């Protein structure tokens, strides 16, 4: 009898430990009773946004590389001009921009009364410092190589005149670079800018908190506080929304959004404004052979990828350019390669791989859409004899090994544009560009690119951009797939979400409909 009781007790203990083990897991996603829910936050006029990856180690806007970092810090920093939701550049720290008739010089008038988050006024010194910091080529390639077009900068009272070597229609887009206070050396950890939100705190791997900047020069943000919560797993993000811990999550998949109740959430659809592709390391065998790359393109059915992994959402692409770029976007390239298994096999045989080969796709495992895409691709490539191994890696090792170290064979990722210049997407395929992580090297492309750098006629430049795009498609630089649909889950009551042609989330326009003064 005693034994039985003991056994029963043991079973009970085991059961308890199992339960707590399961409970422990949910710590990943914010749940539990103590977490304030959506309605609590509506009353406090704040929101919590779920993001799938931690920000760059340094929050210095001039050094940040990850799109996810810019997405958040867009609310903290501003340039002389800044993009609006239609892709136009509107005056920000400069109240007025005058372009000389020949396009050879720009005059910026500093806005009166613009303050940094630390309370200091923005001076001409700060502006010059910020531009020079990005143009400085004393330590190798400058942060923004395109700024080499600046011949001279003269400051007079509150007017800055920038004279260019030659007219450059892209120049203004670079003036979105963040203006930072000159004598401040803690941008890495406690960034200070002029945006509608100021940085409050950051807990690595956990969260980042922004607060409304009371002295903002323009229309103030409507929310008092925005907390970004890092949850590096799609399921955790979903749980966070369902449990009430999160109010808004961008970049969700359709499988995920379909699990959210329509009573609590609204799903808004935009485009991600990035080029999702199976990026190939062009320097690595067998992808150094153009026929192999083309075979891959012929093996893939983009529309089917969208149907299988994205419920049909998304815009198929054929080159490194997405529709938000307007005249630079050549839609006809999308169908340059249509799925043709026989042709793919023939090309592989011609390249010396009649039986296919093994390849590895390195995918950041925190991005479910990319993982799903890789899985669908592996099935399609398998049909032409290419055996795919998917290697899921952490976001940080993806950044350091794949993007930084270029130690990969292929990867599925979305590449965004940091500003609305064609250069932002195409510059990385110039053979010696520091961000040419696919090691693309094509003499014709390089020649076109160099020519474009010295072309200041709008139409001629556009034509060169289109030729570069076509070059990437013809040489199958990568297996281009799509500009992903951006499905954003927004808690009911939260309004004002705006989609930009850039990878940013404008928190200043968001507000709780119930609490907003109308």
């Amino acid at each position: 009898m005693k034994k039985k009781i003991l056994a029963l007790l043991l079973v009970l203990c085991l059961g308890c430990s199992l339960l707590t083990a399961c409970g422990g897991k949910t710590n990943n996603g914010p749940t539990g009773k103590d977490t304030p829910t959506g309605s609590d936050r509506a009353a406090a006029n704040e929101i919590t946004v779920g993001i799938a990856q931690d920000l760059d180690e340094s929050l210095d806007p001039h050094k940040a590389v990850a799109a996810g970092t810019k997405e958040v810090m867009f609310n903290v920093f501003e340039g002389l001009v800044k993009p609006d939701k239609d892709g136009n550049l509107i005056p920000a720290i400069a109240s007025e921009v005058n372009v000389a008739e020949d396009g050879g010089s720009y005059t910026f008038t500093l806005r009166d009364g613009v303050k940094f988050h630390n309370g200091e006024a923005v001076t001409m010194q700060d502006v010059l410092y910020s531009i020079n910091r990005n143009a400085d080529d004393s330590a190798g390639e400058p942060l923004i190589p395109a700024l080499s077009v600046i011949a001279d900068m003269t400051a007079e009272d509150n007017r800055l005149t920038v004279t260019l070597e030659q007219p450059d229609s892209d120049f203004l887009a670079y003036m979105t670079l963040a203006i930072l206070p000159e004598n401040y050396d803690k941008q890495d950890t406690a960034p200070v800018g002029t945006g509608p939100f100021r940085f409050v705190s950051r807990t690595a791997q956990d969260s980042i908190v922004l607060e409304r900047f009371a002295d903002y020069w323009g229309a103030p943000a409507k929310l008092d506080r925005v907390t970004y919560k890092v949850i590096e797993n799609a399921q955790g993000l979903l749980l966070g929304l369902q449990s009430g811990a999160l109010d808004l999550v961008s970049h969700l998949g359709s499988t995920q959004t379909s699990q959210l109740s329509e009573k609590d959430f609204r799903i808004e659809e935009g485009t991600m404004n990035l080029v999702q592709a199976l990026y190939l390391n062009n320097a690595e065998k067998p992808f150094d052979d153009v026929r192999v790359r083309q075979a891959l393109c012929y093996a893939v059915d983009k529309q089917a990828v969208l149907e299988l992994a994205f419920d049909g959402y998304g815009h198929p692409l054929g080159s490194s350019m997405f529709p938000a770029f307007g005249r630079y976007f050549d839609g006809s390239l999308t169908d340059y390669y249509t799925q043709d298994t026989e042709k793919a096999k023939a090309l592989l045989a011609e390249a010396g791989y009649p039986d296919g080969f093994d390849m590895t796709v390195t995918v950041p495992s925190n991005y479910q859409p990319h993982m799903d895409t890789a899985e669908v691709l592996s099935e399609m490539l398998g049909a032409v004899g290419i055996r795919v191994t998917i290697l899921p890696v952490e976001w940080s090792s993806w950044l350091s090994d794949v993007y930084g170290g270029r130690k990969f064979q292929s990867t599925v990722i979305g590449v965004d544009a940091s500003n609305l210049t064609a250069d932002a997407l195409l510059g990385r395929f110039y053979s010696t560009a520091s961000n040419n992580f696919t090691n693309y090297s094509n003499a014709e492309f390089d020649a076109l690119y160099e020519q474009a750098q010295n072309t200041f006629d709008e139409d001629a430049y556009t034509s060169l951009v289109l030729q570069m795009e076509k070059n990437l498609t013809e040489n199958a630089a990568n297996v281009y797939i799509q500009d992903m649909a951006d499905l954003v889950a927004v808690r009911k009551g939260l309004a004002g979400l705006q989609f930009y042609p850039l990878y940013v989330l404008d928190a200043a326009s968001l507000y709780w409909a119930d609490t907003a003064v109308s």
Partner: protein
Amino acid sequence: MAARKSNPFLILGGVLIAAFLALAVFGALFSPQDPNAMQAGEKLLAPSLTHLFGTDRFGRDIFSRALAGLGTTFFVAAATVAIGAVFGTLTGALTGYYGGVADAALMRLNDTLTAFPAVLLALLAISLLGPGKESSLVLALGLVFIPGYARLMRTAFASPSNRAFVLSARLMGAKGARIIFVQLLPNTLPTLLPALTIGFNNAVLAEAGMSFLGIGVTPPDASLGYMLSEAQGMLAAAPWYAACVGGVIVLLVFAVGLFGEGLQRRMHT
């Protein structure tokens, strides 16, 4: 020898294991559909006659994938136990039989390995061996399994080493290796066999756990553990996915457990 008592554990366990083995080995032949074929129009279908376990979010037949996954899981578990048992038995035999300084040193090393949480140790091994490969997973899990077997087998070898049959073998001039493998090893079987079945079950669960954490079998390969982790994301949309795959794991572990229990009863009667 009297007729043995009928042993339902052994019979039922054996039949189930045989069925699983047949499915794992010949599963590809039974498989109603290509386990990797995706169908855009057939996503997340509930179980039906065409799709016994329903379909996953790519429209793949879960039953076919479970069959393929069973093969992977079976192989990983068997290989893991083999590595653990062979190296564990060797270590246990040497240290148990000879004793001395080597025994003390090896056993302290063993203690050190045991002190690490198993998952952590496997994680370390996998990151050293290179993730994403089935062989890494097997080696890592095998490594984690060695200390347990070594400890168990050391005791099994140490206790009878002064018994009469060992002493007489020694008197007859038998060398250490012969004594260990011919005289002692058969005597340790009552300890080893149940440990093998328990180890197999632990390995199945470990593979499931590792793949669940995303460090074991990687897509598009199917394994029961990976499928279960995938199913977790769709608990609301496709509850049958988790239930079916989880059910298969439970049944497999149950079968091997029964078999082990049967073996043990048989040896003690």
